[in-house]
């Protein structure tokens, strides 16, 4: 039973790695960009996420889960990226001059709000982006991020409160 299920997933992927990448990587890159504010980093993260997906084809019991799992992997990688800032910093210092992640410098009409969003604590930004960009419910966000529903609600509330407060203060 298990083998049959797995083959059902593996079979459509046969020779179609490129198609999977073209179909899913752009969406994942957009999500990664919104979570990091950095295009180059977003591209790297999506590539890394895709590598992990390739390694888990056999773990996927349903082809439909590919997009969901890719999204989840991107979110986890973004979290990892910021969590390991200390290690990265040491490396960057040693590499003095090597190009590292730098904040985006996009300038447009919503620049201020964009920067406010990027300045939010990581987990608050994640739940806000998943809610307002991916249109996930709080329950879906909880499942995706493996956080308790209460935590998601709390992060959402605090994040939005912070954005509202800052914008109103400035308004």
């Amino acid at each position, binding site marked *: 039973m298990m083998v049959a299920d797995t083959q059902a997933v593996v079979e459509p992927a046969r020779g179609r790695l490129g198609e999977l990448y073209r179909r899913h990587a*752009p969406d994942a890159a957009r999500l990664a960009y919104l979570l990091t504010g950095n295009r180059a980093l977003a591209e790297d993260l999506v590539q890394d996420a895709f*590598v992990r997906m390739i390694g888990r084809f056999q773990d996927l019991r349903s082809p439909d889960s590919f997009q969901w799992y890719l999204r989840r992997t991107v979110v986890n990688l973004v979290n990892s990226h910021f969590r390991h800032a200390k290690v990265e910093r040491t490396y960057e210092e040693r590499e003095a001059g090597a*190009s590292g992640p730098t904040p985006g410098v996009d300038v447009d009409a919503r620049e201020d709000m964009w920067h406010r969003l990027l300045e939010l604590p990581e987990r608050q930004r994640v739940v806000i982006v998943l809610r307002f960009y991916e249109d996930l419910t709080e329950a879906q966000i909880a499942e995706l991020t493996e956080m308790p529903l209460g935590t998601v609600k709390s992060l959402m509330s605090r994040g939005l409160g912070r954005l509202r407060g800052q914008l109103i203060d400035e308004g």
Partner: protein
Amino acid sequence: VIDVDTDLKELLSEKAEEMRLSPEIPPRVLGRARRHRFLNAAAAGGVVVGIALIGLVWVRAALEPSAHVAHPSPISSSPAPSDLAWPGIFPFDNRADAEAVQKAASEGHQPGLVDARVVVERFARERLGWATVYRQETLFDQKGLDGPLVIHISTCDATGGAACEDPDPQSAVVTVARLLEPAPFGIWEVTEVEGPSSFSPPAPQPLPSDPLSTFVGLTVDGRLVVVDSTNGTIYRVLVADALDVDPSSLARSFDGREVYFTRAADCPARIFRVPAEGGTPKEFASGLFPRPSPDGRLLAYVSASPDCGGSPELVVRDLATGQESRWKPRGLADQGICNPVWLPDGRTIAYEACGLQGDVYVLDTVGQPGLALDQGKRLGPGKEGWFLLGYDAADGGLVVRTRCVNEARPVCPNLTVGAFVIDPQSGSVIRQLSGFLDDAENEVLELHFDATGDHVLFLGFLDAVYRRDGTADPVKILAGLQAATW
């Protein structure tokens, strides 16, 4: 009134549109695809071939314009770490100096170095000691403004247009390329010289005698390199065309002198051996997963993979006599054998069934000569499957990583994710490995303990290799690697 909800939706939609991604699969994705064990599983055999073929076709197509030259494509928007092994000879023999001058050149301060003729003539005068330099063709006869360009030079005018005043006429063939930036601001670098007896390239830096001070890595752009394990400096490029090397098959002898690797593009895969000091790789056997024994006397490998239609036998070769012992797969023939790991006694081998169940077995190669591989002592899995990663001498156990095999959910949300040390006799968990980057996301793809068990090399976030000594925090050594081993 500020409507944050509406503004957020619009903002995020607008910002998302700013992110554009090339539809082509990047080489690093293809390279990393090869590393995963499932590529060797019978159930995924087609995927192996598919990914490998796509990867090779894509990569070869990408490299086609410069496939006939001996050095990498000259222009790279994001230099790969392997470029730390700077291919330039003149005017700069290291990347740092070249980058500093390139920065100036980009601002218009080094006009001479953006002219290939000037660089070649300077090279001839300063490095070859020539008083007079003749070029025997125009640069524009050759393809591409970024190179590589092959330029013939001599101390006398080969056309006979000028009288030769050199009593000892010399000639040379010089290859130049813009290694950092394209035209018009990219500076030219001499990358190869043939001919003149007065020139010899700098001798390579000798490797440190302590094997722990270096490790062997496979870069995402396909080079097999020896790296300083403390600062990430690349000592050697052992193999420059390693795009088809299987990342899971990289191994090094315990004395650090020999490196084994497998070219997996062909069926059957081929095992090669190359000295860590450098040299010509020699084909060693057909098969996968070469693994030298702790005492250096034996080499274990898997004879074939089911993808190639062969029988995946476990082979142990005596390196002194060439004599081989073989164990047949029997019930494991369809899924194959992955990642054999020697135990310190030099006679017991653990191995993983590549298929979907995640079984790990151990076999006494001295005491169980006639056994089939599915008759070895089965250690796992329990409720979850295992990938076999290596051996931890400090704890005296095999290192495994859990894998999703039994859950009904698409992605095994209840999987106890992590790496563990297990008893090679009973399979019971000795301890869970912690303190690595992110066990929760299974980011540690490989763990390589040294012979003492005190030093760990692991591949983590964004193709980076980290080193962890004892219980200290991991230190990032070098990015851009798809495999690494002590």
